[in-house]
């Protein structure tokens, strides 16, 4: 029986343990693709929806209401329905319609000013009614509609999912594997041999990095084949950036696992680490939606920086120079995590 060097044996054992865990395979490879498909379908680009509006009719045969309904019906942006005064108020309050119109004169628009769709509905309704009454344009205008690849939701989503997956896989695989080994006293048994501790830790990282290429190919490939999300920048740079990200989150996983001895403890810490980043770091929606004051903090999170770098490469086609600051933030988190983890690591 041939025996390979310890680092090779350790890494191959780690990789086998991972491959023999069907749940892990699902979360790493299948889940992000399923998520991309589900969200991609839910938010797929289609013509803008018509905004529902209501017209108040005091009686079933209210002639003013019937005229107003017909005029609004000609607007391409509106979908008008007839309501009794009470049911109209209800529909407005519950958000079924964005605007309630009382036929005039004077015409009354009832709407909630804080709702963007209501403001649009008011403008569109005003436009439709004024035009029907004979208003003409004072200045000729021409509208050009744009639907460019790279600006759709799925284009935003795919790099974010990739970043999230790099984080999840790195943190879970290290935190679980090392904590389990400590919990079952495998770590203690291993350090009772002449094994080098650095070999063990390195094998944990290499074992995870071995799955980086399939992970990238599957997610980026699915984005490209299913939604036409092309990588505008360099594939090599995409791989290197993902590698830096994967390493950083391995470091954070190791830090999480450096002292805890129960899976519950490690799960708690891992969730505590990842949950804020799922929300803040621009995976599903842009992090710029949060208040300006916290933007510097959000930008300093490793997943925010990684997502910005990945979006820079995939959707904007930036080169190394364009993503260097983000890459530096990611790498710094990694180095700091490794340094602290190695300092406080408990082997038993």
């Amino acid at each position, binding site marked *: 029986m041939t*025996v390979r060097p310890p680092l090779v044996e350790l890494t191959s*054992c780690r990789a086998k*343990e991972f491959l*023999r865990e069907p749940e892990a395979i699902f979360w790493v490879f299948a889940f992000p693709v399923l998520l991309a498909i589900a969200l991609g379908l839910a938010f797929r680009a289609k013509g803008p929806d018509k905004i529902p509006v209501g017209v108040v009719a005091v009686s079933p045969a209210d002639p003013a209401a019937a005229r107003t309904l017909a005029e609004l019906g000609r607007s391409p942006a509106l979908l008008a329905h007839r309501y009794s005064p009470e049911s109209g108020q209800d529909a407005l309050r519950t958000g079924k319609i964005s605007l309630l119109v009382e036929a005039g004169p004077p015409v009354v628009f009832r709407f909630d000013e804080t709702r963007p769709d209501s403001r649009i509905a008011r403008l569109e309704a005003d436009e439709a009614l004024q035009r029907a009454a004979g208003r003409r344009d004072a200045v000729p205008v021409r509208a050009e509609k744009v639907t460019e690849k790279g600006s759709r939701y799925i284009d935003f989503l795919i790099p974010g999912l990739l970043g999230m997956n790099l984080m999840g896989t790195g943190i879970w695989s290290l935190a679980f594997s090392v904590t389990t080994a400590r919990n079952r006293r*495998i770590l203690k048994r291993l350090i*009772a041999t*002449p094994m080098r501790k650095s070999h063990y830790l390195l094998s944990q990282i290499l074992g995870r990095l071995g799955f980086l290429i399939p992970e990238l190919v599957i997610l980026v490939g699915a984005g490209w084949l299913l939604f036409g999300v092309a990588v505008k920048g360099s594939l090599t740079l995409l791989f290197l950036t993902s590698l830096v990200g994967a390493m950083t989150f391995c470091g954070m996983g190791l830090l999480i696992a450096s002292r805890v001895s129960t899976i519950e403890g490690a799960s708690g810490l891992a969730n505590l680490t990842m949950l804020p980043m799922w929300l803040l770091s621009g995976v599903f929606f842009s992090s710029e939606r949060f208040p300006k004051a916290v933007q510097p903090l959000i930008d300093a999170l490793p997943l925010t920086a990684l997502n910005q770098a990945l979006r820079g490469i995939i959707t904007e086609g930036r080169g190394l120079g364009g993503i260097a600051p983000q890459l530096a933030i990611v790498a710094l988190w990694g180095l700091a995590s490794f340094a602290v983890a190695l300092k406080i690591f408990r082997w*038993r």
Partner: protein
Amino acid sequence: MTSEPADTAVRCRGLVKRYADVVAVNGLDLEVERGECFGLLGPNGAGKTTTIEILEGLTQPDAGEVEILGSGWQRNGRELRERLGISLQETQLGEKLTVGETVRLFRSFYRRGRDPEEVLVRMALDEKRDARVGKLSGGQKQRLAVACALVGNPELLFLDEPTTGLDPQSRLQLWQQITEFRSTGGTVLLTTHYMDEAERLCDRVAIIDRGQVIALGTPAELISSLQAANVVEFSSEPQLAEGSLRALPGVGEPHRRGSLWSLPVGSLAETVPALLALVERSGSRLVSLSTHRATLEDLFVALTGRALRED
């Protein structure tokens, strides 16, 4: 510094280890010769595991000196690890790996180890080579733990409770492997709370209680120190007075556990009829009576007044 010729495998002096609220090891001295099988026998919580883990270099003692195969843990721990085989108490190995993968992994850590295949055959695990560790029985897992200890081709084998919880057949199998290892010149230090294991396997035994060695010698020496070849155990209704038992001919120190009296005796032929007569005379009724040859268990009871295994 004494650089003894290499006939001492393990030597420790004045070991002390305190935990938050207990003193686990309390000034313990040991010396194990090369080629010997040495047993630490004691009840749970006596300090056996702490002691063996200090000797294995896995636990730092609060005080005391340790010398393993002529060197210390501070000076060249890694070199020393090349020469030791260790099986921890209830180690679990990676459940998703196979038996063969696990043994190969451990083999890779040693410069001069044994052929993993040969160790698997020796430990009767070759048929389980491709089975996942998680699917093994308790006995098979324990044999695998010992296989991982042997695959580094050690000079000294540490086994912490190697047969705890095993069925009789698995125990016998493991005893055979330990005996075989010794026949090739290996030294074994094991802990156990089974007196039959200590009697059967060990050249010398140290009985440990409350972190100290309370008796040391070959099993035969230890048993003969009881000065009683046999033990009579009986209970009666109502109980007999301790004084009247002491007065029986050829009886050592009587011990009582619950309603059961245990009398170390020199000769059954002399004591048993006298005991029966005493029961008769005092109008008592015998509930149970049994006799056995004196064991290390009886010595432990005689020394501490407690049983080795409280179960």
